[in-house]
């Protein structure tokens, strides 16, 4: 075990995968010379050269589309979009092309492309640089959707993403980049579709994604002191969804709270609740709950931003309410 910054764990995964497979390459804005806007690819240009670590023009639709073409013809591109909000600039290539080409070709083609991109609010980046786009991409079939929590998870899941033969949207949380985590010396790929029970409990199940896993852990520790035992599931991947783990947990605890930072409406909480509904309905002791970003654009001012995004306090309050 050793200490590492989340962003360096990402960089290690990229480095190790590029070293392992010379078809793996990266393209994106500012990923090369300065090693990425969030410093997740420092040193890789020097190590792998300009063709494999390609600084691109500001052309999101173009670079994602090129990624699709590269993936169709034998490469394993990792495309970086500087903020997940920019998925909207490239949405056609992500959703109408990358996600559907295999299907439209009747299985002839595969698109082994990863799009890495940061989500999350908390840096006063305002409405166009703070969104969490996991619900939007999960809505559309054909994309795997990964929401790692810690540095260890990010590294292991990114390796899996790069080795996966499907288009994968890999969401990094921008508030974690400069946080320190403990990490194994060697991190193996972490399989998709296997949620991780990071804390066992008996009263209520929290299903959380990305940074919300850490926030939920903090909340659970405090709740424990008040005698509430919370089980926490780190979902890891939204698509594929590990319903079995969630259902088993909820059958045990009788309560389900989903914590995810995407906007609430048509969000991850709604989906998970609906997905497990039939199986857990008769075990539920309270309505299924969700914590999400409310249905307003992300405000710039910290005086407005922090109060509205998911937080430890909000999780605690919601859990208590569900326990009433």
């Amino acid at each position: 075990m050793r200490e590492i910054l989340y962003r360096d764990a990402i960089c290690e995964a990229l480095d190790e995968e590029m070293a392992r497979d010379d078809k793996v390459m990266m393209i994106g804005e500012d990923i090369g010379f300065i090693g990425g806007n969030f410093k997740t690819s420092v040193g890789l240009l020097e190590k792998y050269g300009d063709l494999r670590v390609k600084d691109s023009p500001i052309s999101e639709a173009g670079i994602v589309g090129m990624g699709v073409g590269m993936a169709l013809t034998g490469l394993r591109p990792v495309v970086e979009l500087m903020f997940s909000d920019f998925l909207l600039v490239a949405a056609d290539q992500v959703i109408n092309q990358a996600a559907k080409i295999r299907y439209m070709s009747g299985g002839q083609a595969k698109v082994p492309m990863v799009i890495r991109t940061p989500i999350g609010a908390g840096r006063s980046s305002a409405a166009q640089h703070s969104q969490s786009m996991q619900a939007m991409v999960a809505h559309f079939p054909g994309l795997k959707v990964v929401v790692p929590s810690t540095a260890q998870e990010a590294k292991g899941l990114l390796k899996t993403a790069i080795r996966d033969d499907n288009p994968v949207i890999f969401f990094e949380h921008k508030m974690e980049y400069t946080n320190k985590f403990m990490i194994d010396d060697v991190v193996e790929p972490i399989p998709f579709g296997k949620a991780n029970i990071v804390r066992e409990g008996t009263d209520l199940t929290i299903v959380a994604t990305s940074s919300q896993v850490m926030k939920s852990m903090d909340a659970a520790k405090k709740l424990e002191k008040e005698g509430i035992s919370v089980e926490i599931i780190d979902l890891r991947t939204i698509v594929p969804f590990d319903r079995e783990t969630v259902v088993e947990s909820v059958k045990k605890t009788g309560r389900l709270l989903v914590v995810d930072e995407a906007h609430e409406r048509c969000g991850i909480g709604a989906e998970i609740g609906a997905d497990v509904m039939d199986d857990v309905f008769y075990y539920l002791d309270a309505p299924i709950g969700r914590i999400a970003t409310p249905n307003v654009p992300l405000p710039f001012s910290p005086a407005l931003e922090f109060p509205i995004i998911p937080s430890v306090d909000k999780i605690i309050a919601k859990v208590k309410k569900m326990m009433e």
Partner: protein
Amino acid sequence: MEKVYDKKQLLSFYETMYRMRRFEEEVFEFYKKGLMPGLAHLYLGQEAVATGVCAALREDDYIGSTHRGHGHLIARGAQIDRMMAEILGKADGYSMGKGGSMHIMALDLGILGANGIVGGEIPIATGAAYTAKYLGTDQVAVSFFGESASNEGTFHESINMAAAWDLPIVYVVENNLYGISVDIRDVTKVSDISDRAIGYGIPGVIVDGMDVIAVHQAAEEAVKRARSGNGPTLLECKTYRWQGHHVGDPAEYRERRDPNEKSTWMERCPIRSFREKLRKENITEKEIVKIEEAVEKEVQEAVVFAQESPYPDVSEAYTDVFVD
């Protein structure tokens, strides 16, 4: 620079164009008889373009195609029986009926797929060119699209990158004057799309798209340029479509500027005029008829094949979303 063509090559141009023509006529019949699900965009009138361009390619090169893709696919040697089956939504189609006319793909022939999104395929083909450069294979990619697609942002973003990085690609604009009903002259100030090449620092070339030899020569030059590492060319082929935008479009909008527009263009039929040229080159009527008869037989067999092919089993709707 008059290039000398041998008889075999000339006859092969003719055969390809004739195959496209007869194929599309039969597709149209399917529609008229109510046998075709959805719609199709016929290549009738534009045969010289795909024929000339694809004849300049090597077997391992790539093409990206459009909603009006049948001609491109045939020029690359796609099996017309499987194309026909796809267009009818049958199990023996290239995509098992999942894609249909707008999404036929034949990856083993380097065909990266027709595409239902105007401009959607341009960055994808550009990505294939990137792969060729990355792997050092000296393969070339061709991206076909219409003049109206040149007003999509993806056109701009893709060509900029290909130019900046000297990617081995040829952008072929088939300027048939219309995007559905919209006359390019009403929505674009320049009359030659090739003028846009200047803004990317690459050659822009105009060629008579009704003359297969002229197209072939221009394409050979552009392909040579690409293959030798000198980057892309924007090759504009002036052409015209005989029919409406799709099989169900009466296309009355084309008479608004000039009531004789269509007939003037049809007088320049690329197939009839090339046939006359062949006769002048001392190719006998018999030699030509022999080809026509062989193609006819092939097309009729394709029609039967497609009609007799079963529909896919409904379980197929759920496969090929992901590589397992």
